[in-house]
């Protein structure tokens, strides 16, 4: 691809992933198998179409890209190996970079709380993550009825496991430029 075409959305995605969205012939098999299709305004084949048509604004700002479960069913079934899952992954990254992310608050809160746990402990402390999630999402009462059951089943620990080489984890986050 030329530097000219890299400025198109399809070009940028090709440069980042090696996937050429233009090979999608819109058969819709990806969307037929998508578990979130019934809840998404933009189904996988529609995201592919927007990328092909260079409709950056619509592709990057639609909530649907955040409803993707990354289950990979679309890519597994694509008859032309277009890898919609990888394209949607790339669209999400571009959306964060462009600051245009319209990620539902709960989903963004979950990812941030999850990564913050890794950054501060090296491992996920589930109880800490859920508390942090509640504060970030505002869903304070969410799942409080599950907590006693989790405790009696020995599934919830108040104490976080922390790895020794925490500096290595901090380094990874820094090198990747990610701050949860």
């Amino acid at each position, binding site marked *: 691809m030329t530097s000219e075409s890299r400025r198109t959305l399809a070009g940028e995605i090709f440069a*980042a992933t090696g996937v050429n969205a233009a090979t999608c012939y819109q058969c819709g098999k990806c969307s037929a198998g998508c*578990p*979130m299709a019934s*809840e998404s305004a933009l189904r996988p084949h529609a995201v592919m179409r927007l990328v092909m048509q260079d409709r950056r604004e619509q592709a990057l700002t639609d909530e649907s890209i955040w*409803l993707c*479960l*990354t*289950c*990979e*069913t679309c*890519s*597994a*079934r694509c008859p032309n190996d277009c890898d919609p*899952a990888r394209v949607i*992954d790339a669209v*999400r*990254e571009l959306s*964060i970079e462009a600051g245009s992310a319209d990620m*539902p608050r*709960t*989903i963004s*809160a*979950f*990812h941030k709380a*999850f*990564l913050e*746990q*890794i950054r501060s402990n*090296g*491992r*996920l*402390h*589930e109880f800490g993550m*859920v508390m942090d*999630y509640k504060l970030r*999402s505002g869903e304070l009462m*969410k*799942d409080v009825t*599950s907590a006693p*059951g*989790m405790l009696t*089943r*020995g*599934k*919830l*620990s108040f104490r976080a*496991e922390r*790895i*020794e*080489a925490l500096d*290595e*984890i901090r*380094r*990874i*986050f820094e*090198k*990747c*430029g*990610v701050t949860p």
Partner: protein
Amino acid sequence: MRGDAVSDGALADIAYYPGCSLHGTSREFDESLRAVAAELGIGITEISDWSCCGASSGHTTDHLLGVALPARNLALAEEQGYDTVLAPCAACYNRLSAARLAIATEDGLAERIPDVIGRRFGNTVQVRNAVELLRDAAASVEEKVAATLTPNPLEGVKLAAYYGCLLVRPAEVCGYDDPEQPTSMDEVISACGADAVDWNMKVECCGGAFSVSRTSSVVRLGRAIIDDARAHGAEAIVVACPLCHSNLDLRQKAMALRGEDPLPILFVTQVVGLAVGLTPESLGLERHFVDTEPLIARLIEQAAARDAEERRVKQEAAAKAAERAARQKAGAGAAPKDGDAQ
């Protein structure tokens, strides 16, 4: 650095990457895996100072982060002298395998990763999941089951093997089984003497990481999976993923079952453990939200009844044979009557 591995020397030790869930909400997966590995003589040793693989939050946020976090653990395993990592959690398995593939195939990544993780890394370690490990050990599972003195509670029980997404997709990352029609877990179930049912939702998604952030989707997807398993006669669903387990087990209460009994969700390692005679307690079966006790109690009772019946039939046959032998002895030399001819 091989720690206190349980090994009979028959198999080389495998580096064990439990991942965060197996140290937390899915500790019964860890307990049952360790118990079953010991029983089968598979030596596993936890990687020292392992860290989180980043799961879907890692690669959804940043591609490099999604590769670097798992890569640190592969590098640790390599440094600690292993050539194979066992990652029972489907998400960990998927992320470790995806990182391995990305580093092997993406331009410049192999050179970049050592700098990002601050470690030497040759990308030499294989990644395997628990289903794959048990499938490859199916013959020794069968032998163990046959050699177990207590009657096998799983004999003939209908179980639905549920693979979900991350064990089988993407095919180029996982590749140990077919992405649409996998059979590895069914083979493990059969090796345990149980019946793996044919059903439609083997590789459907359970809603994964939306468990907390979009529970309504998880309830919708889980309901469809449980309905289909039940429609095909399954008495329990078998999983190998902490997230699938929690979405189908913990969230089943929210699925507004229409008067049916809840369907127990078992880890594949718990199934193997039961078949080789381990106790439900040692397999952490009491830790589930859907009570497994009624099913297990019924299965143990049925197995005992079946065993008693088999023994009765055998005893009867033996008694008849003895009787016949005694009669033959008594009547030796006398002409046989018509009725004794056969």
